[in-house]
């Protein structure tokens, strides 16, 4: 620590060069932070303590195949199931048919299964009391600038009403919010399943999928098997999995985010190592005589090695910290601009640890060669300029 001022002075010996290099490093770590935030946001999808407690039961044939409503009572009777709700995909769009909004028709007890979603009690009461009421996630409210009490026309891409029109009118009665807007309900619209079923002639009491909450997470596997056994060999075989597994399955099908992020980061850091490595080589080469002086006045070989290594690590750390801090500043903008694609993009402790670890590792890798060179320096030759 006592050599910090010496390292610092060496680092900023050539201000332009160090600053130019620093900007490159900042750019690399900015990219690392952003991509890692995206990766984490996808990897974490559905991963919450509550998510593990919930089981999703859908048709084994395909996820668009409906299930009979009677199955709900049977699922509720399975030992260890606390509560069962059912949901239908509504296929809502706002203003333009291509402007999709996640819209679900849900059973009255749906919200009880999602304790992490909060709705003010009086709004919940208002929702229960109305026929055509909807609850809207806070992010959607923000996006379209809606207020409680607004009349919202939505188009269903699938279901017409009795007259054959696919334009549905709803009254916005409440807002769903969650901590850090993390729950997917923050970007979803909910309507009454009863309203949905009675208005469209095409549903006829069918249910898209069931969500059940279990008492004990450790029993989930057994419960899932028992639920699937209920309709084995019928014409509506089911497939039950935890909400977490279901979400991750979707994300995996979307894209191999991990692979894309890793390959981009590989290219970025490979370039960075070369670029910064070159800077360090230059820095040591032009300081040959200074390093020789240091050795002359008594610095040991290892401490010269340490000084140069510390210099390159410090350079990387400076750039890394600035880059990652920039991400913390940019992440909220990214979240709001991505229109719900990326939720909760922020630099978590994990990303910070990995970023700083990478900075130190790269610092050592690129510092090693110049540092060895400095260590092996022969004082007489160096001072003579040979």
């Amino acid at each position: 620590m006592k050599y910090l001022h010496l390292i610092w002075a060496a680092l900023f010996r050539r201000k332009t060069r160090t600053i130019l290099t620093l900007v490159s490093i900042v750019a690399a770590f900015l990219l690392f932070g952003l991509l890692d935030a995206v990766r984490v946001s996808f990897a974490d999808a559905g991963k919450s303590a509550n998510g593990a407690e919930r089981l999703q039961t859908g048709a084994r044939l395909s996820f668009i195949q409906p299930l009979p409503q009677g199955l709900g009572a049977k699922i509720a009777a399975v030992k260890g199931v606390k509560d069962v709700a059912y949901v239908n995909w509504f296929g809502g769009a706002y203003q333009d048919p291509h402007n999709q909004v996640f819209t679900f028709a849900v059973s009255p007890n749906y919200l009880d299964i999602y304790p992490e979603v909060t709705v003010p009690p009086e709004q919940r009461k208002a929702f229960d009391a109305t026929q055509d009421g909807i609850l809207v996630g806070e992010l959607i409210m923000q996006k379209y600038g809606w207020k409680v009490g607004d009349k919202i026309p939505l188009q269903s891409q699938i279901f017409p009403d009795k007259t054959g029109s696919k334009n549905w009118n709803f009254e916005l009665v409440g807002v769903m919010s969650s901590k850090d807007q993390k729950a997917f309900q923050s970007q979803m619209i909910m309507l009454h399943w009863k309203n949905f079923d009675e208005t469209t002639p095409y549903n006829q009491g069918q249910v898209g999928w069931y969500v059940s909450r279990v008492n004990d997470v450790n029993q989930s596997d057994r419960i899932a098997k028992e639920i699937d056994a209920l309709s084995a060999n019928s014409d509506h075989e089911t497939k039950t999995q935890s909400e977490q597994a279901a979400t991750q399955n979707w994300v995996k099908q979307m894209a191999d985010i991990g692979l894309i992020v890793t390959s981009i980061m590989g290219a970025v850091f490979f370039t960075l190592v070369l670029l910064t490595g070159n800077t360090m080589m230059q820095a040591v080469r032009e300081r040959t005589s200074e390093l020789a002086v240091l050795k002359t006045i008594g610095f040991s070989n290892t401490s010269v090695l340490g000084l140069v290594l510390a210099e390159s690590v410090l350079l990387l750390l400076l750039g890394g910290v600035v880059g990652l801090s920039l991400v913390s500043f940019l992440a909220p903008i990214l979240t709001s601009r991505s229109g719900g694609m990326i939720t909760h993009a922020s630099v978590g402790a994990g990303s910070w640890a990995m970023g700083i670890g990478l900075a130190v590792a790269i610092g050592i890798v690129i510092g090693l060669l110049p540092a060895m060179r400095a260590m092996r320096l022969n004082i007489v030759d160096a001072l003579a300029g040979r």
Partner: protein
Amino acid sequence: MNFLIGFVIFIAAILGVAIFLILPWQGMLVLLVLLALWMLLTRRGRQTASVAAVGVSTLTQRLGSSAVIVIGIAGVVAVLVAMLAMANGYSETLRRTGSEDTAIVLRGASSAEVSSVLEHDAAVVITQAPGIVKDDQGKPIVSPELVVAANLPLKGGDPDKDFGSVQLRGIGEQAWKLRPSAKIIAGRKFEPGKYELVAGKGAQRQFAGLEPGKQIKLGNQTWTVAGIFASNDAMDSELWADAQIVGPAYRRGASSTSVFAKLTNPAAFAPFKAALGSDPRLQVDVTTTLEYFSKQSEGTSKAITIIGIVVGTIMAIGAVFGALNTMFAAVATRAREIATLRAIGFRGLPVVMAIMLETMLLALVGGVLGGAIAWLIFNGYTASTLAAGTTGQLTFEFNVAPSVLWIGLKWALAIGFIGGLFPAVRAARLPVTTALREL
């Protein structure tokens, strides 16, 4: 004064980059020819050429630092080209699926096939519309199709857990005539009336058990895979079976999701659409398949392009500073040499131009290298995603098209332009006496 000059250079850099990025290849060619003529015909041009020649010939002595520019830019270009090739491949695959002389009919206001339902009667009415090509037996080439989603275990995954979604298309005999590009490459076609299906070669690559002769389970029914087909478009990701079997199996009866019709020529589309639009028995949307499939790809390919450009821009910033660093160092080591040139009568412009040329040459090498890497690794690389507007995985190939490579090359030159401009101006403006005294 210094600030003013810095500002002017900055504006010049921005303008230069903007021009680079907009310019079509013809424009670039004209610029190149003009530059060559200038270097051959004018005195200053010849001075530039000789200074540049000296710079280039000493490149081998600065191999390490020159490599920084080349490799830095190669990295940017490789990532950018790979992302653009992904977007390009995705939209290309969907666009190839459609053509101007085939029409797709969906129920009104359905944005995609899966969300549409057409009753059997409606499908029959559509068959009688004008402008449809007739086959040898005089039957119109119209194919009412039923698209549903099926769950299949993914290749290389846990067969109990890792399921993916694949689109199962129930078709009739006319579907093969409608899509002449679809050819059986292994096994045979499915037999109508049986639980048999053919799998696209993209689906085969993605899902387990899709081999001719093998049996797969969809729900509680067992289907036989009769063969594999290839059509080199989005259909490659699907399973095809007899619509008469798919309908009951998925409890859809005789209804279909969409009707495809082969028209006599692209001009027949307007009357075809008008005829269906004015029919009181129908409430349908009619589009050409080209428009339909292009629209499906729009959102996703735009998103990939934007991500590519954002990532590319951040990387480019890093590379610009790397190039600046290298060129400043190069100018500093050659300060005396440049000052000598200027002392014996070389003007500022040739010095600036020569250093710019040197940087851009390195940038060009980097751009070509990056493009080549992207091409070698990613051209034809297969990826898959859940496509917008379908319920199944869409398999597509990265397409490193010349247009994509050209964009990468332009980015490389733009980075080289900025990276060379500032050091070049500095070299030209350094007072000769100071520079000569240096070191």
